[in-house]
């Protein structure tokens, strides 16, 4: 995901803002990292460039 995608992402539960932490990037593209909802104290992963904003209780692959 590009960093400017942050503007339109939100916590899937409380709809609050997310905080981006990048662990691997390529230019403007975030490949690995986390999106943290401080209000819910939940981290959502970014993996292979795709943010996963499924609540933890939802079905997993």
């Amino acid at each position, binding site marked *: 995901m590009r960093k400017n*995608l942050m503007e339109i992402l939100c916590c*899937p539960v409380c709809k609050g803002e997310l905080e981006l932490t990048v662990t691997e990037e390529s230019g403007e593209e975030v490949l690995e990292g986390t999106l943290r909802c401080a209000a819910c104290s939940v981290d959502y992963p970014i993996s*292979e460039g*795709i943010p*996963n*904003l499924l609540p933890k209780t939802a079905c997993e692959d």
Partner: protein
Amino acid sequence: MLPDQVYPPAEDSFLLLRAALAEVRETDRVLEVGTGSGYVAAGLLGRAASVVATDINPHAARCARARGVAAVRTDLFAGVSGPFDLILFNPPYLPTAPDERMDDWLEYALDGGPTGRATIERFIADAGRVLSSFGRILLLVSSLTGLNDVRDLFARAGFVSFVVDEEPIEGERLYVLRGMRDLCRMGA
């Protein structure tokens, strides 16, 4: 080559892309919900200010990203805030009895619950949260889903809707409904 857990583009996808190309403006921030292979969203790249696509299916999200679309794995628009000027959705619309369910990722792309409208109801109920004031929705529906029932759902959520494109296919008729906020009724 698509993984077998991703809905491959079919007549409904082709119709939705045709309607979207007629609708899209260069300044639009576009969201496609439940993008599947990413075929429709990718067809709008370069025609809009931005194109974002969501899918709950991890295989689908990867397909859409491989087509160059900004992909987010989430349920409908749960993890996005918008606002978007154009929202596209080719929903799971087939009426499906509980004993017909397959319980895999493809089922998400097809299973509309007993009425065919279970996912459409959730979509319409939350669409206003992410749609800009003058934003438009293009929703693919089938005669099997009940066109008038879906238009009623739009009306109850405060949207006006009308058919902008249609196509007969074997055993059903496909429609693209265009929905907008009913601005005359706002504040009434």
